[in-house]
């Protein structure tokens, strides 16, 4: 156990797998396959494993996903890191191949691959394209792919290990805005099971559910609410599909109030699936969801920051739901 950055925790997991599996490949475009952290050995996958296995070429996200998919089809485990500026480029492959090939071939084709799909972190000021790509629910909608999204460095490692070990293709959403986070992360290889949500605070008055970049906002709001005497159960989804409906339903069975928080667009955000799934299991209960409006992110920080479902919005929404 040692303090590690998000990226360090991830690359440590990849390094371990690549040392054990001599043909496993890592594809990257802009994000160097290297990480350092005080008092820890520098990780540089490109130097350690060479460019036959760790490779970048042009600004061509389609290639990185295709190379991972093709590798998987010939029995080579592959991870591709797709940067946020281009991850919709790979959507055709996810929709028509990665998600369907195993099924369409009657189980003949297998793809032990991971596509790490970076989210921008919605930095204000970078406008429509570079503040965007909080598009988690696009992937969870596709049959045949599992979709996970960590919100802590420890989960970033554990979910990546689980994704790399999974014989099915996993879409691993990487909220780049959380990369500055540092925490204690186990040195050994460990799995955070895919399909299991994490209860971050236990409570009985209201359930607040988020994932990825929403979680810091949810936890900050939960802290404010606890100070007001509200008992909050904050749940981090971690896995969008399969979704841990059991944990969610058990929580709402107790609190009877469910608020979902998403940084992505409102329509068909993961929270919509959460509410629909829980509503089928628990009655009576009250529901609310907040998310980014159905508008592209504007450049102006005044507009953008107002549109974000930040901790104050979460706090206000929870208060409204509690009063309802």
């Amino acid at each position: 156990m040692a303090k590690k950055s998000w990226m360090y925790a991830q690359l440590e997991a990849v390094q371990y797998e690549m040392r054990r599996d001599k043909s496993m490949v890592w594809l990257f475009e802009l994000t160097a396959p290297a990480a350092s952290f005080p008092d820890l050995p520098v990780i540089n996958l490109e130097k350690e494993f060479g460019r036959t296995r760790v490779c970048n070429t042009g600004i061509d996200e389609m290639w990185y996903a295709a190379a991972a998919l093709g590798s998987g089809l010939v029995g080579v485990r592959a991870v591709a890191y797709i940067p946020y500026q281009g991850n919709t480029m790979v959507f055709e492959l996810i929709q028509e191949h990665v998600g369907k090939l195993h099924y369409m071939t009657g189980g003949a084709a297998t793809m032990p691959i991971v596509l790490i799909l970076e989210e921008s972190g919605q930095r204000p000021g970078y406008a429509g394209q570079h503040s965007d790509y909080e598009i988690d629910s696009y992937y969870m909608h596709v049959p045949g792919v599992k979709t996970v999204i960590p919100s802590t460095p420890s989960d970033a490692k554990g979910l990546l290990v689980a994704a790399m070990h999974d014989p099915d293709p996993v879409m691993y959403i990487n909220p780049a805005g959380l990369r500055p986070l540092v925490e204690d992360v186990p040195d050994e290889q460990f799995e955070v099971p895919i399909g299991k949500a994490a209860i971050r605070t236990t409570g009985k008055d209201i359930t607040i559910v988020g994932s990825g970049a929403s979680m810091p906002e949810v936890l900050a709001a939960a802290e404010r609410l606890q100070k007001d005497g509200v008992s909050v159960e904050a749940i981090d989804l971690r896995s969008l599909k399969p979704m841990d409906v059991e944990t969610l339903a058990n929580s709402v069975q107790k609190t009877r109030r469910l608020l979902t928080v998403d940084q992505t667009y409102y329509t068909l955000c993961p929270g919509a699936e959460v509410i629909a799934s829980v509503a089928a299991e628990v009655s009576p209960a009250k529901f609310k969801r907040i998310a980014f409006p159905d508008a592209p992110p504007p450049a102006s920080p005044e507009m953008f920051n107002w549109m974000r479902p930040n901790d104050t919005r979460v706090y206000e929404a929870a208060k409204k739901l509690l009063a309802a």
Partner: protein
Amino acid sequence: MAGAATAVTFLSTAARRARADGDIGYTAKDLSDQQLLQMYTTMVRIRWHERMMVDKMLTVQGYRGYNHFYAGQEAVAVGVMSTLNNTGRPDELDYVLSTHRATGHALAKGMDMKKMAAEIDMRATGVNLGYAGSMHLSDPSIGFIGADGIVGPGGAVGAGAAFGIRAKGTRQVVVAFGGDGHFATPHFHSALNNAALLKLPFIYVIENNLYHQYAHYSYSTPMKDIAAAAATYRIPGVMVDGQDVLAVFNVAKVAVERARAGEGPTLIEAKTYRYYGHSGPAGAKPGQLGAFGYDPLAITSFRPEREVKNWMARDPIDIFRRTLVNWAVLDEAKAAEIETKAKQEVVEAFQFADASPVCEPQEGLKHVFLKGQVPARQLA
């Protein structure tokens, strides 16, 4: 003939000889003094906009603008844009698609510097009302379809615009700019393949500044000259010294005339260089042109200082100024006056932006569609 004397030139032997004899032998020689001075002035305006914005980013706390700086590449934007119709009715204007490195293209196409500066600072008075920032600058009234933060699509969309123009039956043309990074994208092939198949009025200008983001183009391109790709599509592929505005003008002029005459697309590769890093002012010092040293963002390649200095020694503005002085179109006093005026214009543009109101937060719900606004879903 400063440009020709030092240039690695890609002109025909005849053109090269003609130029060495003091008669450049092709269309740029027919430009009026006024046109030549306007081209020079535009290059100087772009240069000082970039330099002063770098300085502002380095020195003014709280300044919100950022940019992918175009300094060093001015001859390409100005050489190409000087062959286009940049004013007029919507059925006369020629159209340009730019990249994330858009400010040089925007100014050369005729964008108002004040409104551009306000947009880059994300003000309500910006040319795109504060929605765009530097990466999505757009002004249809001058035929500037606009910037794009995504590498590749501009080429294919540009060919699409040319397809639309062919359907309209006008004599307009479309220019799409791209960096050397475009070659590796699937859109590059789609753009040239379809433009060639359909003989579209399309010119694809690849500004090869050697680096796509932080990697040398040898990482993404198997050949030295991207223009060579044109042969695959059976269209002209022309290489040009991107530091020589008249050379750029000449090849662009030929391409534009071909396109207007219905003879189809051209691929132009301008060999050029950017004086700053991929994005922002890292490595630059206030008052000093260019960025040097280790760029913390450079993951695959970082630019040797010798390389930066070598390219800066062939500065496009110096090259053009020496030519114009030789031609007695310009003298050093007049050149200094142009420079002073350009700096003053930039000062005033930044002042306009600084004094402009910021956006109203609720405006963010508008302009999703032509009419109405979307609900504020961040609020319960």
